[in-house]
């Protein structure tokens, strides 16, 4: 059964689908963070993005520092689990070198926004925010009356990115994307978007994907472009492929503290690096060895095959 081949390279995928002023979501909750795609957006000099990401982190820092982002829509602003995002802080606290618009929700608020966007709904309700200051500062968090007689309940509006970019372990050429380990809200963020780019560790034969259809997080109809991009989540990780580069995260904090250091880093690791292969080469085999993981494979399950009746 032939299917349209969606495999392309990252510069083409970004050039085709990401433009100035768009609303762009790059998701991945501490896992499978699409760093390579973010770097390509920087290299292409795309600006004025409304950048959606539940957990802005080093990826958000570099994209903001590079001037790609006008507005940040997010729910937790920290590097890794707790470290400060100094580039974000400079802009928010001192408008240095420029202000940054921030639209803030909680994690589940963002998840519900993506869910509503994915399901073509105007909003979804959630049991948060009663008594919080967040709704006062974010007028998009509203309340509806419960038609079944219960108390009012807060709702958040659908989020519909122009483009969502995710990284995954594998996809076939048609764009059926499989991931495992922490899958976060990627399915929702992708279905919420008009266009989806999936970077993957491996493009695999469709037989691999079809041997385990329950593993598919994004069916091909939800995906516009597939890019094979080994190591595309570094310095975050890809479960079973390579581990998080914790040393990188620790090294980032002093860089983050000085804007000039961030810009130097961008020059060295993004602008002067044509693609992820070159980035990994620059990183070097020793560093890569430090994040290698040993095998621990899932036990296969049987999907069965109907026997031909003689």
């Amino acid at each position, binding site marked *: *059964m*032939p*299917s*349209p081949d969606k495999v392309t390279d990252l510069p083409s995928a970004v050039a085709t689908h990401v433009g100035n002023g768009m609303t762009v979501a790059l998701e991945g909750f501490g896992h499978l963070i699409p760093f390579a795609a973010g770097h390509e957006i920087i290299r292409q000099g795309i600006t004025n993005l409304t950048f959606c990401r539940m957990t802005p982190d080093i990826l958000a820092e570099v994209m903001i520092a590079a001037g790609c982002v006008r507005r940040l829509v997010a729910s937790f602003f920290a590097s890794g689990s707790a470290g400060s995002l100094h580039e974000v802080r400079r802009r928010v606290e001192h408008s240095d070198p420029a202000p940054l618009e921030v639209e803030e929700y909680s994690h589940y608020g963002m998840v519900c926004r993506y*869910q509503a966007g*994915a*399901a*073509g*709904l105007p909003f979804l309700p959630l049991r948060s925010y009663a008594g919080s200051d967040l709704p006062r500062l974010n007028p998009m968090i509203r309340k509806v009356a419960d038609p079944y007689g219960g108390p009012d309940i807060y709702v958040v509006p659908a989020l519909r990115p122009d483009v969502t970019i995710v990284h995954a372990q594998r996809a*076939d050429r*048609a764009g*059926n994307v499989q991931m495992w380990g922490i899958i976060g809200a990627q*399915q*929702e963020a992708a*279905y919420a978007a008009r266009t989806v780019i999936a970077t993957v560790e491996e493009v695999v034969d*469709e037989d691999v*994907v*079809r*041997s385990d*259809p*329950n593993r*598919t997080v*994004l*069916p*091909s*109809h*939800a995906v516009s472009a597939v890019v094979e991009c080994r190591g595309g989540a570094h310095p975050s990780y890809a479960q079973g492929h390579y581990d998080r580069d914790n040393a990188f995260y620790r090294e980032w904090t002093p860089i983050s503290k000085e804007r000039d250091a961030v810009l130097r880093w961008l020059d060295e690791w993004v602008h002067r690096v044509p693609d992820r292969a070159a980035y990994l080469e620059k990183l070097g085999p020793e560093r890569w060895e430090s994040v290698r993981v040993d095998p621990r494979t899932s036990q296969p399950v049987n*999907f*069965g*095959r*109907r026997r*031909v*009746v003689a």
Partner: protein
Amino acid sequence: MSSRPVGGTEALSDVAPSTTEFLAAVAARQLVGKQRVFAGVGLPTLAVDLARRTVNPDLELVYESGICGAQPEGLAEGIADSVLVSGAAAVLGMPALFGYVLQGGHIDVGFLGAAQVDRWGSLNTSVIGDWDQPRVRLPGGGGATEIMPNAGECIVVLRRHDPGALPARLDFCTSPSPVRAHAEDPRMVPPGHGVSTVITPMAVLRRPEKLGELVVSEVHPGLTVDEVRAATGWDIPVADDVRETERPTVEQIRLLREEIDTVRLYLR
């Protein structure tokens, strides 16, 4: 599966098609150029299989059971058949399937059946007679109530063409046309077109306007427009370019009988 091209022009000769075969062949032709179809069981199963072997090898089959991109090795006896799962591209839970795939707008065509279709393409699949004490209790809305507003368009296949199946007024509206949604609240008109095509044993009816009504578009060989109109429960308009329905080709019939439904599960 084979996808060898059909010799689409040779006339049908000694292999007289059954009504089911005829309907399946007509239905399959509606799928030219469509990407994703929400397929039901029975006649739609034959139609989508035939379409994939003839006019549209890339057609993606999606089932309300959660299966996307099915590549069945055998004929499915239902929308939840294990042969649709083995080798599929994806199996999603129902929240994702109904919420993200269907309501999210990814389905081009939904195939629906119905006990009654009205002039606006609203469907009754709930009851014949009164709701409180129905004469016949039918299966109900199922996924059709969602497919109708959310699929790009819906194709209905009816096995009868008479004023009972095509009445002036439905006994119950299970799956409303956009016309009825508009009547409830003009702002609640759904994204989908609603029923675009009704295929019956007598004719092909089409509804070209989203808020318009069905018209007689094709009349099956051997029947007249007047016969079709007389068998319809309201004064149905006739398209300016009404024509005779294209007959199934020999190759279509051969595929249905010799490759698709060799065990005569649906071909009766």
